[in-house]
Protein backbone atom coordinates (compact mmCIF):
# COMPACT_ATOMS: atom_id res chain seq x y z
CA UNK A 1 0.00 0.00 0.00
CA UNK A 2 2.90 2.39 0.54
CA UNK A 3 3.52 2.11 -3.17
CA UNK A 4 0.02 3.39 -3.81
CA UNK A 5 0.57 6.51 -1.77
CA UNK A 6 3.82 7.25 -3.53
CA UNK A 7 2.51 6.96 -7.06
CA UNK A 8 -1.06 8.10 -6.77
CA UNK A 9 -0.64 11.90 -6.73
CA UNK A 10 1.25 11.86 -10.01
CA UNK A 11 -1.20 9.37 -11.43
CA UNK A 12 -4.29 11.46 -10.84
CA UNK A 13 -4.19 12.60 -14.46
CA UNK A 14 -5.62 9.75 -16.48
CA UNK A 15 -6.66 6.13 -16.67
CA UNK A 16 -3.44 5.13 -18.40
CA UNK A 17 -1.33 6.15 -15.42
CA UNK A 18 -3.64 4.33 -13.02
CA UNK A 19 -3.32 1.25 -15.15
CA UNK A 20 0.44 1.49 -14.85
CA UNK A 21 0.09 1.40 -11.08
CA UNK A 22 -1.75 -1.92 -11.27
CA UNK A 23 0.99 -3.35 -13.44
CA UNK A 24 3.60 -2.31 -10.93
CA UNK A 25 1.69 -3.65 -7.97
CA UNK A 26 0.73 -7.10 -9.18
CA UNK A 27 2.93 -8.29 -11.97
CA UNK A 28 6.14 -9.27 -10.18
CA UNK A 29 4.28 -12.10 -8.42
CA UNK A 30 2.69 -13.35 -11.59
CA UNK A 31 5.88 -12.78 -13.51
CA UNK A 32 7.88 -15.14 -11.31
CA UNK A 33 5.40 -17.98 -11.58
CA UNK A 34 4.97 -17.53 -15.31
CA UNK A 35 8.73 -17.33 -15.80
CA UNK A 36 9.20 -20.45 -13.74
CA UNK A 37 6.52 -22.19 -15.80
CA UNK A 38 8.43 -21.26 -18.97
CA UNK A 39 11.60 -22.72 -17.42
CA UNK A 40 9.67 -25.94 -16.74
CA UNK A 41 8.51 -26.03 -20.35
CA UNK A 42 12.11 -25.71 -21.53
CA UNK A 43 13.00 -28.53 -19.13
CA UNK A 44 10.24 -30.52 -20.82
CA UNK A 45 12.11 -30.11 -24.10
CA UNK A 46 15.32 -31.36 -22.47
CA UNK A 47 13.48 -34.49 -21.33
CA UNK A 48 11.81 -34.79 -24.74
CA UNK A 49 15.22 -35.03 -26.42
CA UNK A 50 16.34 -37.66 -23.91
CA UNK A 51 13.12 -39.61 -24.49
CA UNK A 52 13.67 -39.31 -28.25
CA UNK A 53 17.21 -40.68 -27.81
CA UNK A 54 15.82 -43.56 -25.75
CA UNK A 55 13.10 -44.21 -28.34
CA UNK A 56 15.78 -44.49 -31.03
CA UNK A 57 18.41 -46.42 -29.03
CA UNK A 58 16.20 -48.33 -26.59
CA UNK A 59 16.44 -51.64 -28.45
CA UNK A 60 20.11 -51.46 -29.46
CA UNK A 61 21.45 -54.02 -27.00
CA UNK A 62 24.77 -54.67 -28.82
CA UNK A 63 24.51 -58.30 -27.71
CA UNK A 64 24.22 -57.18 -24.10
CA UNK A 65 21.37 -57.54 -21.64
CA UNK A 66 17.91 -56.24 -22.53
CA UNK A 67 15.43 -54.32 -20.41
CA UNK A 68 13.42 -57.47 -19.76
CA UNK A 69 16.51 -59.10 -18.23
CA UNK A 70 17.61 -56.08 -16.19
CA UNK A 71 14.56 -54.24 -14.89
CA UNK A 72 13.19 -55.14 -11.49
CA UNK A 73 9.55 -54.03 -11.72
CA UNK A 74 8.63 -54.39 -8.01
CA UNK A 75 11.52 -52.03 -7.22
CA UNK A 76 10.25 -49.56 -9.84
CA UNK A 77 6.74 -49.84 -8.40
CA UNK A 78 8.03 -48.95 -4.93
CA UNK A 79 9.97 -46.01 -6.37
CA UNK A 80 6.87 -44.82 -8.20
CA UNK A 81 4.91 -45.04 -4.95
CA UNK A 82 7.54 -42.94 -3.14
CA UNK A 83 7.31 -40.20 -5.75
CA UNK A 84 3.51 -40.27 -5.96
CA UNK A 85 3.08 -40.10 -2.19
CA UNK A 86 5.65 -37.28 -2.01
CA UNK A 87 3.45 -35.37 -4.48
CA UNK A 88 0.45 -35.44 -2.18
CA UNK A 89 2.54 -34.67 0.93
CA UNK A 90 3.82 -31.58 -0.90
CA UNK A 91 0.18 -30.76 -1.57
CA UNK A 92 -0.51 -31.00 2.18
CA UNK A 93 2.44 -28.67 2.81
CA UNK A 94 0.92 -26.13 0.39
CA UNK A 95 -2.48 -26.41 2.10
CA UNK A 96 -0.85 -25.86 5.50
CA UNK A 97 1.13 -22.90 4.12
CA UNK A 98 -2.04 -21.40 2.69
CA UNK A 99 -3.64 -21.66 6.14
CA UNK A 100 -0.51 -19.92 7.53
CA UNK A 101 0.41 -22.92 9.69
CA UNK A 102 4.20 -22.86 9.76
CA UNK A 103 4.61 -26.04 11.84
CA UNK A 104 2.41 -28.12 9.54
CA UNK A 105 4.16 -26.76 6.46
CA UNK A 106 7.58 -27.68 7.85
CA UNK A 107 6.39 -31.16 8.87
CA UNK A 108 4.91 -31.99 5.45
CA UNK A 109 7.91 -30.52 3.64
CA UNK A 110 10.17 -32.68 5.79
CA UNK A 111 8.16 -35.81 4.94
CA UNK A 112 8.26 -34.87 1.25
CA UNK A 113 12.03 -34.47 1.42
CA UNK A 114 12.45 -37.85 3.13
CA UNK A 115 10.30 -39.55 0.47
CA UNK A 116 12.44 -37.87 -2.19
CA UNK A 117 15.57 -39.21 -0.48
CA UNK A 118 14.06 -42.73 -0.39
CA UNK A 119 13.37 -42.44 -4.12
CA UNK A 120 16.94 -41.33 -4.82
CA UNK A 121 18.37 -44.03 -2.56
CA UNK A 122 16.50 -46.81 -4.38
CA UNK A 123 17.49 -45.36 -7.74
CA UNK A 124 21.16 -45.23 -6.76
CA UNK A 125 20.90 -48.82 -5.49
CA UNK A 126 19.46 -49.82 -8.86
CA UNK A 127 22.24 -48.01 -10.75
CA UNK A 128 24.92 -49.54 -8.53
CA UNK A 129 23.41 -52.98 -9.04
CA UNK A 130 23.32 -52.54 -12.84
CA UNK A 131 26.90 -51.27 -13.05
CA UNK A 132 28.03 -54.06 -10.74
CA UNK A 133 26.44 -56.61 -13.09
CA UNK A 134 28.43 -55.14 -15.99
CA UNK A 135 25.41 -53.29 -17.40
CA UNK A 136 26.87 -49.81 -17.02
CA UNK A 137 26.19 -46.85 -19.32
CA UNK A 138 29.04 -47.82 -21.67
CA UNK A 139 27.72 -51.35 -22.30
CA UNK A 140 25.25 -50.58 -25.11
CA UNK A 141 23.29 -47.80 -26.79
CA UNK A 142 20.23 -48.89 -24.83
CA UNK A 143 22.03 -48.54 -21.50
CA UNK A 144 23.57 -45.17 -22.44
CA UNK A 145 20.12 -43.79 -23.27
CA UNK A 146 18.67 -45.38 -20.13
CA UNK A 147 21.27 -43.93 -17.77
CA UNK A 148 21.09 -40.46 -19.37
CA UNK A 149 17.30 -40.28 -19.14
CA UNK A 150 16.78 -41.80 -15.68
CA UNK A 151 19.94 -40.15 -14.33
CA UNK A 152 18.83 -36.70 -15.51
CA UNK A 153 15.50 -37.20 -13.78
CA UNK A 154 17.31 -38.33 -10.62
CA UNK A 155 19.54 -35.22 -10.72
CA UNK A 156 16.42 -33.07 -10.93
CA UNK A 157 15.03 -34.80 -7.86
CA UNK A 158 18.34 -34.24 -6.05
CA UNK A 159 18.26 -30.51 -6.84
CA UNK A 160 14.60 -30.45 -5.79
CA UNK A 161 15.60 -31.85 -2.39
CA UNK A 162 18.45 -29.34 -2.01
CA UNK A 163 16.00 -26.54 -2.86
CA UNK A 164 13.48 -27.97 -0.39
CA UNK A 165 16.02 -28.02 2.46
CA UNK A 166 17.15 -24.45 1.69
CA UNK A 167 13.52 -23.34 1.63
CA UNK A 168 12.88 -24.99 5.01
CA UNK A 169 15.69 -22.87 6.49
CA UNK A 170 14.17 -19.79 4.84
CA UNK A 171 10.77 -20.66 6.30
CA UNK A 172 12.21 -21.18 9.76
CA UNK A 173 13.89 -17.78 9.57
CA UNK A 174 11.33 -15.60 7.78
CA UNK A 175 8.00 -17.43 8.14
CA UNK A 176 5.24 -17.60 5.56
CA UNK A 177 5.53 -14.16 3.99
CA UNK A 178 4.70 -13.30 0.39
CA UNK A 179 8.26 -14.11 -0.79
CA UNK A 180 8.31 -17.54 0.80
CA UNK A 181 4.83 -18.33 -0.51
CA UNK A 182 6.07 -17.48 -3.98
CA UNK A 183 9.10 -19.74 -3.53
CA UNK A 184 6.87 -22.53 -2.23
CA UNK A 185 4.59 -22.19 -5.25
CA UNK A 186 7.57 -22.49 -7.60
CA UNK A 187 8.96 -25.54 -5.80
CA UNK A 188 5.48 -27.07 -5.82
CA UNK A 189 5.35 -26.70 -9.61
CA UNK A 190 8.87 -28.18 -9.89
CA UNK A 191 8.11 -31.15 -7.65
CA UNK A 192 4.83 -32.04 -9.40
CA UNK A 193 6.55 -31.59 -12.76
CA UNK A 194 9.16 -34.21 -11.79
CA UNK A 195 6.36 -36.60 -10.92
CA UNK A 196 4.81 -36.00 -14.35
CA UNK A 197 8.13 -36.81 -16.03
CA UNK A 198 8.38 -39.98 -13.93
CA UNK A 199 4.97 -41.17 -15.29
CA UNK A 200 6.57 -41.34 -18.71
CA UNK A 201 9.81 -42.82 -17.41
CA UNK A 202 8.09 -45.77 -15.76
CA UNK A 203 5.67 -46.26 -18.64
CA UNK A 204 8.00 -45.78 -21.57
CA UNK A 205 11.31 -47.04 -20.16
CA UNK A 206 10.48 -49.67 -17.56
CA UNK A 207 7.06 -51.12 -18.45
CA UNK A 208 7.51 -50.97 -22.23
CA UNK A 209 11.14 -52.04 -21.89
CA UNK A 210 10.06 -55.27 -20.21
CA UNK A 211 7.56 -56.07 -22.98
CA UNK A 212 9.06 -58.01 -25.89
Amino acid sequence: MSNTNATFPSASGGAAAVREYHVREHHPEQGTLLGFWIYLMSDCLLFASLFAAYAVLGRNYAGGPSGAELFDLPLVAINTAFLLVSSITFGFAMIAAQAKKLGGTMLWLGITGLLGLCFLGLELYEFYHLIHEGAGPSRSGFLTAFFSLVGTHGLHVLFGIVWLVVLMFQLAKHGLGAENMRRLSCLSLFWHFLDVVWIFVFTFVYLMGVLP
Partner: protein
Amino acid sequence: MSSQHHDHHGHHGDPLHGHTHGDAPGVHYSLKDYTTGFILAVILTVIPFWLVMGNVLDPSTTKYVILGFAGVQLIVHMVYFLHMNSKSEGGWNMMALLLTIVLLVIVLSGSIWVMHHMNANMMPGMGDAAAVTGHGNHDMQ
Protein backbone atom coordinates in the same frame (compact mmCIF):
# COMPACT_ATOMS: atom_id res chain seq x y z
CA MET B 1 -7.56 7.30 1.24
CA SER B 2 -11.30 7.21 0.61
CA SER B 3 -11.05 8.89 -2.79
CA GLN B 4 -8.29 6.52 -3.75
CA HIS B 5 -10.43 3.59 -2.70
CA HIS B 6 -13.23 4.96 -4.80
CA ASP B 7 -10.99 5.29 -7.81
CA HIS B 8 -9.82 1.74 -7.35
CA HIS B 9 -13.38 0.55 -7.64
CA GLY B 10 -14.07 2.85 -10.54
CA HIS B 11 -11.69 0.83 -12.68
CA HIS B 12 -13.05 -2.51 -11.73
CA GLY B 13 -14.39 -3.09 -15.20
CA ASP B 14 -10.92 -2.59 -16.66
CA PRO B 15 -9.98 -5.71 -18.61
CA LEU B 16 -6.37 -5.45 -17.41
CA HIS B 17 -7.58 -5.58 -13.87
CA GLY B 18 -9.50 -8.85 -14.09
CA HIS B 19 -6.78 -11.46 -13.71
CA THR B 20 -4.44 -9.51 -11.46
CA HIS B 21 -6.76 -9.09 -8.54
CA GLY B 22 -5.47 -11.86 -6.25
CA ASP B 23 -3.11 -10.94 -3.45
CA ALA B 24 -1.43 -14.37 -3.17
CA PRO B 25 -0.47 -16.50 -6.17
CA GLY B 26 -3.67 -17.04 -8.09
CA VAL B 27 -4.00 -20.70 -7.09
CA HIS B 28 -6.20 -21.99 -4.32
CA TYR B 29 -4.81 -25.21 -2.84
CA SER B 30 -7.65 -27.43 -1.69
CA LEU B 31 -7.55 -30.77 0.06
CA LYS B 32 -10.30 -32.07 -2.21
CA ASP B 33 -8.23 -31.41 -5.35
CA TYR B 34 -5.16 -33.17 -3.98
CA THR B 35 -6.99 -36.24 -2.67
CA THR B 36 -9.02 -36.62 -5.89
CA GLY B 37 -5.85 -36.30 -7.93
CA PHE B 38 -3.96 -38.72 -5.71
CA ILE B 39 -6.65 -41.42 -5.84
CA LEU B 40 -6.97 -41.12 -9.62
CA ALA B 41 -3.17 -41.17 -10.01
CA VAL B 42 -2.86 -44.31 -7.88
CA ILE B 43 -5.51 -46.09 -9.94
CA LEU B 44 -3.90 -44.97 -13.20
CA THR B 45 -0.48 -46.15 -11.96
CA VAL B 46 -1.53 -49.51 -10.52
CA ILE B 47 -3.41 -50.66 -13.64
CA PRO B 48 -0.45 -50.41 -16.07
CA PHE B 49 1.89 -52.13 -13.57
CA TRP B 50 -0.69 -54.90 -13.12
CA LEU B 51 -1.15 -55.23 -16.91
CA VAL B 52 2.58 -55.69 -17.47
CA MET B 53 3.52 -57.72 -14.38
CA GLY B 54 0.52 -60.04 -14.68
CA ASN B 55 0.79 -60.54 -18.47
CA VAL B 56 -2.89 -59.78 -18.76
CA LEU B 57 -3.09 -58.75 -22.42
CA ASP B 58 -0.87 -59.63 -25.33
CA PRO B 59 2.25 -57.41 -25.41
CA SER B 60 1.46 -55.32 -28.50
CA THR B 61 -1.94 -54.32 -27.09
CA THR B 62 -0.48 -53.70 -23.62
CA LYS B 63 1.98 -51.22 -25.14
CA TYR B 64 -0.77 -48.94 -26.44
CA VAL B 65 -3.00 -49.38 -23.41
CA ILE B 66 -0.28 -48.34 -20.92
CA LEU B 67 0.65 -45.34 -23.11
CA GLY B 68 -3.01 -44.36 -22.99
CA PHE B 69 -3.00 -44.63 -19.19
CA ALA B 70 0.14 -42.45 -19.04
CA GLY B 71 -1.60 -39.82 -21.17
CA VAL B 72 -4.66 -39.78 -18.90
CA GLN B 73 -2.46 -39.63 -15.78
CA LEU B 74 -0.59 -36.67 -17.31
CA ILE B 75 -3.88 -34.78 -17.58
CA VAL B 76 -4.88 -35.76 -14.01
CA HIS B 77 -1.56 -34.45 -12.64
CA MET B 78 -1.83 -31.23 -14.65
CA VAL B 79 -5.34 -30.47 -13.44
CA TYR B 80 -5.15 -31.58 -9.80
CA PHE B 81 -1.47 -31.13 -8.87
CA LEU B 82 -0.17 -28.42 -11.21
CA HIS B 83 -3.56 -26.61 -11.07
CA MET B 84 -3.57 -25.91 -14.78
CA ASN B 85 -6.55 -24.35 -16.49
CA SER B 86 -7.02 -22.17 -19.51
CA LYS B 87 -7.17 -19.04 -17.34
CA SER B 88 -4.08 -19.42 -15.10
CA GLU B 89 -1.63 -16.53 -15.55
CA GLY B 90 -4.07 -14.91 -17.93
CA GLY B 91 -3.85 -17.78 -20.40
CA TRP B 92 -0.08 -17.57 -20.86
CA ASN B 93 0.53 -20.84 -19.02
CA MET B 94 -1.65 -22.60 -21.54
CA MET B 95 0.04 -20.82 -24.47
CA ALA B 96 3.49 -21.89 -23.25
CA LEU B 97 2.20 -25.44 -22.74
CA LEU B 98 0.71 -25.60 -26.24
CA LEU B 99 3.95 -24.34 -27.79
CA THR B 100 5.87 -26.97 -25.81
CA ILE B 101 3.53 -29.71 -26.97
CA VAL B 102 4.00 -28.63 -30.60
CA LEU B 103 7.82 -28.67 -30.20
CA LEU B 104 7.65 -31.97 -28.31
CA VAL B 105 5.63 -33.65 -31.05
CA ILE B 106 8.03 -32.34 -33.70
CA VAL B 107 11.13 -33.50 -31.77
CA LEU B 108 9.77 -36.91 -30.81
CA SER B 109 7.92 -37.92 -33.97
CA GLY B 110 10.64 -36.35 -36.14
CA SER B 111 13.52 -38.24 -34.51
CA ILE B 112 11.69 -41.55 -34.41
CA TRP B 113 10.56 -41.19 -38.03
CA VAL B 114 13.95 -40.13 -39.38
CA MET B 115 15.94 -42.66 -37.37
CA HIS B 116 13.56 -45.47 -38.32
CA HIS B 117 14.16 -44.73 -42.01
CA MET B 118 17.92 -44.48 -41.51
CA ASN B 119 17.86 -47.84 -39.75
CA ALA B 120 15.82 -49.33 -42.58
CA ASN B 121 18.23 -47.98 -45.19
CA MET B 122 21.26 -49.24 -43.30
CA MET B 123 19.87 -52.76 -43.12
CA PRO B 124 21.49 -54.30 -46.26
CA GLY B 125 25.01 -53.37 -45.10
CA MET B 126 24.25 -54.29 -41.51
CA GLY B 127 22.95 -57.76 -42.37
CA ASP B 128 25.93 -59.54 -40.87
CA ALA B 129 26.00 -57.44 -37.74
CA ALA B 130 22.28 -58.05 -37.16
CA ALA B 131 22.80 -61.79 -37.58
CA VAL B 132 25.66 -61.73 -35.09
CA THR B 133 23.55 -59.79 -32.60
CA GLY B 134 20.68 -62.20 -33.02
CA HIS B 135 23.08 -65.07 -32.47
CA GLY B 136 24.51 -63.43 -29.38
CA ASN B 137 21.06 -63.05 -27.87
CA HIS B 138 20.30 -66.63 -28.72
CA ASP B 139 23.43 -67.80 -26.94
CA MET B 140 22.50 -65.88 -23.84
CA GLN B 141 19.11 -67.51 -23.47
